[in-house]
């Protein structure tokens, strides 16, 4: 047994150079310090993304986009063995992934890991966040229950409010003037073909960059002399810890998905009035609330336009931070970047809570 394994390993190693990879993994080290905990969140995001791919493919086995969408999700939920669990896992994992990505992004921000030479890590990460929210938005419609229907209808009013090209874009996204079977069909294409085709290469790029530059250490650690910095080997020490964290993530996901099965509302019906408290997924709540408040302050579409501009401006500033605070000699600008991050975090949290309170 042992010798068989050894000889098969040797055979493969000779052709693929597994030893090189192993030697490389042994040499690689991960910094160890008070903030090391935050290094796990990129990996946790990755874990949930893998779960999305696995459960998503399983859902594709029975899901039918188009006019039959609701019925097929009803069958998955009530007729197929464990279909409710697969669907529940996909929905919970989507939300946990977004949560992990946000935590990952803010920890990267406050550790100033976006600084030289990691700018592309920051930018590709932001691209992944945007794609992840589009994943969420397009996936939310697919069951075509009434919540999905109205949330999408409302969500598409945001691009529709853009001047001149807005209504055109909204119509193209909907595949008509109203959300309907065509909208589901295109959201499905987006959700299972276009988004993965964009997301996976960017993710590979993102991971390759982490590998290339190694983990960033926070400024407090950077100021210590090199001899005082501690680190652990990537393999096996960090990998074992990473696996342990993934197991925790898996258990949390399994418990949530099994104990709180994802709901399926009544079938969408354009003639029924919108149910009370219609709201988007939590990661859009902040934008939703800002738009609502702006709409109250300024009549007509002006409020929406101002709200969208505010958010776009914030995103652009967020995107450009590595250029404003490029390295450890940024001084005053570095402090301002930290304050900006705290302000963004505070605004997001407050408007989100406000949004739920105002439902």
């Amino acid at each position: 047994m042992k010798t068989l394994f050894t000889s098969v390993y040797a055979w493969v190693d000779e052709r693929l150079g597994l030893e090189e990879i192993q030697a490389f993994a042994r040499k690689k080290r991960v910094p160890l310090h008070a903030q090391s905990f935050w290094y796990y969140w990129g990996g946790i995001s990755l874990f949930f993304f893998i779960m999305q791919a696995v459960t998503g493919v399983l859902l594709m086995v029975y899901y039918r986009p188009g006019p039959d969408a609701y019925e097929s999700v009803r069958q998955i939920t009530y007729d197929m063995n464990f279909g409710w669990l697969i669907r529940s896992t996909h929905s919970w994992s989507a939300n946990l992934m977004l949560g992990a990505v946000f935590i990952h992004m803010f920890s990267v921000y406050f550790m100033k890991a976006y600084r030289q030479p990691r700018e592309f890590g920051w930018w590709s990460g932001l691209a992944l966040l945007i794609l992840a929210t589009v994943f969420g938005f397009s996936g939310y419609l697919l069951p075509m229950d009434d919540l999905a229907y109205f949330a999408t209808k409302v969500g598409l009013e945001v691009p529709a409010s853009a001047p001149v090209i807005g209504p055109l874009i909204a119509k193209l996204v909907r595949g008509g003037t109203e959300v309907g079977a065509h909208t589901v069909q295109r959201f499905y294409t987006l959700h299972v073909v276009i988004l993965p085709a964009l997301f996976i290469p960017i993710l590979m790029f993102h991971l390759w960059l982490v590998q290339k530059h190694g983990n960033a250490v926070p400024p407090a650690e950077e100021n210590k002399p090199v001899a005082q910095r501690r680190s652990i080997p990537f393999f096996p020490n960090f990998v074992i810890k990473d696996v342990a964290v993934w197991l925790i993530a898996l258990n949390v996901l399994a418990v949530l998905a099994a104990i709180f099965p994802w709901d399926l509302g009544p079938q969408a019906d354009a003639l029924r009035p919108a149910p009370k408290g219609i709201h988007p997924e939590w990661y859009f709540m902040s934008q939703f609330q800002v738009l609502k408040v702006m709409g109250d302050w300024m009549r007509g579409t002006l409020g929406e336009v101002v709200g969208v501009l505010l958010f776009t401006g914030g995103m652009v500033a967020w995107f450009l931070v590595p250029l404003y605070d490029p390295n450890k000699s940024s001084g005053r600008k570095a402090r301002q970047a930290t304050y900006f991050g705290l302000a963004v975090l505070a605004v997001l949290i407050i408007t989100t809570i406000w949004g739920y309170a105002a439902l």
Partner: protein
Amino acid sequence: MKKEYNHKAVPTEGEMTRGAFLKAAAGGVGLCYAAAAGYPIYRYLSSPIEKVESAATVSEVTVPDGQKLAKGEAKMFKFGAKPAMLIHHQDDSWVALIAVCTHLGCTAQYESAKNRIFCACHGGVYDPKTGGNVSGPPPRPLTRLEVKVTADGVVVTQNPTAKT
């Protein structure tokens, strides 16, 4: 007081090293997780099979208006999940058969002009009265069903001695 721990680097015979134990334990836990994930996925994927198989256990089907079938003609119907054919012969006898070819499972057809049951896939021929395999690759006769003609349909039942 200092406690003495005995971390033996070399196990005595019949003992396991700590590393080997941890490896085995991790493998066992891994298997448990794989089973806990694999079982629901297996059951999920096999849902339609289970459904079809429970539908296939029918033992009686009524072919509506089957009694109106003209002499020398055949009519296809579903017996559970399987295609079946009802033939009204020139001599006024009735025959019902599972139409699944015993060679490789194509659906066979009744050809009234040649008065034979023919399978187009590899040219198998069956006797339309008995279902017996006459020529071509089919290794066994087609499965026969019992027929009872009533005023509002033809009742086809599973032959208790035959398996479908």
